[in-house]
């Protein structure tokens, strides 16, 4: 390792300016490795990270939450339900097959069958072939998030995945557990090919010689990805030069990495909101808007960010972060203890009451500590909290049962759009509509439901933003939930590994474009 580091430094010194042609190896450590090589098996950060290495999407997010074409050269709206994508002509799969519109249609049909992805693609009716390099993406109703969702369409090699494997099963099958062809074999169009994979130990990648994007500045020819579960070990591996790039970075080590002259830290405001929900079915007092407001006013989320998160989070007053359609600058955090006490008095609850609270202790950054802080802050308005924290594996079944009066939940919008927060967290829970699946507070407001549903078919972004901002306003006035903060993101690399241009708020670095000096 050490030798490698010296060799690279020496080489860089000799050449003066390193050119992009030379072979570079990136050793990276994440907290976990991808669960499967099948991009449709699980909707998770790990899967998406892998997809961006081995596959290419139709379009992808830019740093400022815009879109840039990848497999799609250009796109245009044909009518209010149809988007037409022109595909690149020169794209090859790792297997050598040419990519055509048939592959995209095949991929789309498979997405519609994936238990994890079909929810996201419910608004879409079909993808149709227009010619070998043009497809139409058709929605059932006018739909504003066609491009957002297109970032999830990673072309799979339909010829490669068609047929039967050695057990006589279809190669295309999406299997959640048990052996399947697509979980262990892969052919995409992406910048890297998987050369070796030992699950939980190591995945190695080699740059794909026939990669279509010749303009990409990326000069990494090999990637060795090792999962390192423990934060301190991950940091030690970077500091000792055993690896070049790590994520996530534990908040306690941020300062140390920033100060170290051999390493570089890149941070960014994230999009995952951390909240508490107030269960109105379990606690009568939570039905009183004044009580909910009092609770929101009593919780010093600014203090939590400063003291517990060490500044490594953005204080929140609403669901969606800045940059999202529904964000409005006026909805600021509202810690005010005096006002909270007054509101409790108004509600006739000066003497307070007792509630139960549950939070996970290994799901979100500092989750258990945050819950403890919130519990002690609530004691100042005489709400006595009986707190129970537990590992996430045990927490989720409790959450599904709505086992406590206040429960913590964090949410990241899979569509990178404001409406998604409400659809899962604040719309009226109903098994029929599927909305409010994670609304443990049972908050229900017809206005919110109506506005969010309305936004789903609005294709004018300006009008739509207004509607979503109104939703946030209603939730704010209602104190529908307790907003705490959005978790920030951090990556760290040794100097010379230029991660800053390739990382993004979605937390899947575009490693194909990574430059190592």
């Amino acid at each position: 390792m050490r030798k490698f580091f010296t060799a690279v430094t020496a080489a860089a010194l000799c050449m003066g300016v390193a050119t992009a042609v030379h072979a570079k190896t990136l050793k990276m450590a994440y907290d976990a490795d991808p669960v499967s090589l099948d991009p449709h098996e699980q909707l998770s950060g790990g899967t998406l990270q892998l997809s961006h290495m081995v596959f290419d999407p139709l379009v992808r997010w830019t740093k400022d939450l815009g879109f840039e074409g990848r497999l799609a050269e250009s796109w245009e709206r044909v009518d209010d339900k149809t988007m037409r994508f022109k595909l690149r002509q020169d794209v090859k799969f790792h297997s050598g097959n040419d990519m055509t519109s048939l592959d995209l249609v095949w991929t789309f049909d498979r997405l519609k069958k994936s238990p994890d992805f079909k929810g996201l693609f419910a608004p879409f009716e079909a993808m149709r072939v227009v010619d070998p390099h043009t497809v139409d993406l058709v929605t059932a109703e006018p739909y504003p998030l066609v491009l957002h969702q297109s970032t999830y369409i990673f072309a799979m090699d339909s010829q490669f995945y068609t047929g039967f494997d050695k057990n006589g099963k279809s190669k295309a099958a999406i299997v959640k557990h048990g052996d399947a062809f697509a979980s262990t074999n892969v052919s995409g169009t992406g910048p890297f090919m998987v050369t070796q994979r030992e699950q939980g130990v190591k995945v190695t990648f080699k740059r794909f010689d026939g990669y279509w994007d010749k303009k990409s500045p990326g000069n990494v020819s090999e990637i060795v990805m090792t999962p390192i579960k423990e934060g301190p070990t991950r940091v030690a591996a970077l500091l000792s030069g055993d690896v070049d790039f790590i994520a996530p970075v534990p908040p306690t080590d941020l300062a140390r990495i920033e100060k170290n002259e051999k390493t570089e830290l890149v941070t960014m405001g994230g999009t995952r909101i951390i909240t508490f929900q107030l269960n109105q079915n379990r606690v009568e007092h939570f039905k009183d808007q004044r009580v909910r407001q009092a609770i929101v006013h009593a919780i010093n989320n600014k203090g939590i960010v400063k003291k517990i998160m060490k500044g490594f989070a953005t204080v929140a007053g609403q669901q969606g972060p800045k940059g999202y359609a529904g964000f409005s600058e006026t909805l600021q955090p509202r810690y005010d203890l005096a006002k909270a006490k007054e509101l409790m008095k108004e509600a006739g609850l000066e003497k307070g009451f007792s509630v139960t609270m549950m939070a996970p202790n290994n799901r979100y950054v500092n989750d258990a500590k945050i819950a403890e802080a919130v519990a002690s802050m609530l004691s100042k308005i005489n709400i006595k909290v009986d707190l129970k924290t537990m590992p996430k594996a045990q927490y989720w079944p409790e959450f599904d049962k709505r086992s406590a009066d206040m429960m913590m939940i964090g949410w990241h919008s899979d569509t990178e759009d404001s409406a998604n927060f409400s659809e899962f967290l604040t719309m009226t829970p109903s098994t029929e509509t599927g909305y409010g699946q994670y609304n443990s507070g049972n908050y229900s407001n017809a206005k919110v439901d109506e506005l969010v549903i309305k936004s789903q078919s609005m294709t004018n972004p300006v009008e739509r933003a207004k509607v979503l901002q109104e939703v946030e306003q209603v939730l704010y006035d209602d104190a529908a939930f307790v907003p705490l903060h959005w978790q920030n993101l951090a990556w760290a690399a040794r100097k010379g590994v230029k991660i800053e241009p390739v990382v993004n708020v979605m937390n899947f670095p575009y490693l194909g474009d990574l430059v190592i000096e």
Partner: protein
Amino acid sequence: MDYFYFAVRRLLQALLVMFVISLIGFSIQDNLGDPLRELVGQSVSEAQRQELRDRMGLNDPFLVQYGRFLAKAVQGDLGQSYFFKKPALEVIAAKFPATLELVIGATLIIITFAVPLGVFCAIRPKSWFSKFVMGFSIVGISVPVFLTAIFSIYLFSVELGWMPSFGRGETRNILGWQSGFFTVDGLVHLILPSISLASIMMPLFIRLIRSEMMEILQMDYIRFAWAKGLYSKRVWFLHAFKNTLLPVITVGGVQVGTMLAYTILTESVFQWPGMGFLFLEAVNRVDTPLIIAYIIVVGLIFVVTNTVVDLVYTWVNPTVKLVGQKS
């Protein structure tokens, strides 16, 4: 004959213990969490989850599930790991060499240091070095293994840059054993994890050897040996040390099990791809078949080592009464 009778009895007991372990292991699985949470994304609907649960047989009554498990278990099939998508036993077997390597490394370190130090402390209890060793062993026994591990990474990998900070290094296959013992890189990677693992057991053995030996040095036959005018080396290392080893073997055998428990901590700090790390990950991922398989495999190791220790002990020391022996 007595010995045979004893061995059979022990074997039956071992089987019973294994059955109880499997029952306990299986019955706690419902409290470990919901495996579906780890298998599907957050936004998958409850109906979808139920459908998957049905298909995986997770909604069946406990006895049906346990019966199905037991029927397969007697044929050597402990189920499929959700995460690895392979038979759980196969996954554990693949990780076992790495753990074994670590345990062997730690054992070698313990033997090389604990025996001479323990003997020295017994022979020269008043020397300053003995006092230092005893004092240091108190510290060693009280510092948790993950702290030793993290501290050694910080010192030797980050600050001094002598050692690799994580992982197992290169391995080579010799005579069907894929091991890091056969490459320089593999050996270098073994040093810190082995020391960390040894650190928790070492003080115990130093103290054990010391106290046992001191006791034996007071015995009559040692006095006779001195009186006979034997060389001190012969008294210490032949007569006294041999008898010191008896309790050390028993404790050592039992401690192999404890050592396995500590590999969980050591392996997770060093990202060592062994069984212990695998288990911790399985618990986090609610990979229940893998958890149960691990419990059974480790249970088996415990039972086997204890049985072997019993048998060896009776063989080394014939004065010990066999259980069930007719007197």
